[in-house]
């Protein structure tokens, strides 16, 4: 969403009408107006995926052109 964030809208409104907003109150405003809605559900599906299997270091090291330990590495 390109639109200005709700937290910023409220805080800039407060500033516009000269309400002094202390740091702690601003933090509370931000907390109370959080979280921001999902832009898309794909943000959630990443979290819902099961933890990936641990495949060990070898496959990753080969991918960067580095032999795994025991294959040329002391």
């Amino acid at each position, binding site marked *: 969403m390109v639109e200005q964030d709700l937290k910023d809208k409220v805080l800039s409104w407060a500033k516009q009408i000269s309400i002094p907003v202390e740091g702690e109150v*601003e933090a*509370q405003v931000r907390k109370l107006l*959080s*979280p921001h809605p999902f832009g898309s559900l794909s943000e*959630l599906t*990443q*979290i819902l995926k099961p933890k990936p299997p641990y495949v060990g*270091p070898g496959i*990753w090291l080969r991918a960067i052109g580095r032999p795994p330990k025991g294959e040329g590495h002391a």
Partner: protein
Amino acid sequence: MSFLDSEQMIIILDALESVTNGMENPGLLEQIKDIPRGSKLRPYVDLVFALQAYYGQNPTRVRAYVTSIPDGSPPARLKPLLSFLAGLTKDAPEGMVDREILKALQQRKSYLETTLEEAEQFLAQNHEESFSDSIAYLIRELYGKFPEPSKQLTLWAWEKIQEKGWDGSLLDAHLKMIFGDLEATRLKALYLLHSGRPGAFQEWTSFLMKLLHTEPRNVKTVEASFMIWIYAAIQEHSDSRRLQEILEVLVRKHPQLKAKYEKVLEDLTSAERCVFARNGSSSLTVGRTVHLPVSSPERCVSPSRKKRDFVQLELFPS
């Protein structure tokens, strides 16, 4: 001896081994985390932390570390794959090694993914009850480990319920069980504020009223809630009785806020009274009522001193 065979590199490789074999070693990660940006070893460190973030299912951190890896360095070869695995890009890289890793990491759908798909089907088939049950189940399951996404999912669910024109009472009941009454009310009000739909003021009023009746409360939280409440009041067309209810409780419990917000409330109340008078209606629901330019002929004539005092007496009963 090249830097790639240095002792530090051995520690980095041990750290990489620990994050990719499921036996993460915080001591090793601690030892490598401060290797400076300028070091030739730093791209390897960023790769270790990108992998750690991937296994920790934290796409934001994956993005941060992948971005830090300079193009041209050997670890940069894994940037497209890690971005894809973390859901940051749509298309899988086509390299042979990439395909090999993807195959090794292939995984079945989790039961939570299946539940989300079911919820989306219920939504498409207009089954409010089943949709509410499935979504509430997901929200509950997520809440312990991922509190923020579970609340984002709540906002999404309210949006869908609103789009469908459903009643939402079943979801509401579920959410009160999950988050408690106060937080569930805040989330519903928050959705309405974000969406700009009518009802935000009313919901935020309910939230503020509940907050004011919950003890003990941090006064800064009350003040912030109160500020948002005034914001909602001027965005929407507030009901004078609800304004009055809140103000009465507020002045009794938090009199120190009176002085700070007196002027804003006076403006808000007098502007609404102006509309009230113009429309002759018992509710204040016609037209935006505040922030008319001072010179505007539409602006309400400033109340006399006597009138202002009368307004103040009503706003802040002793």
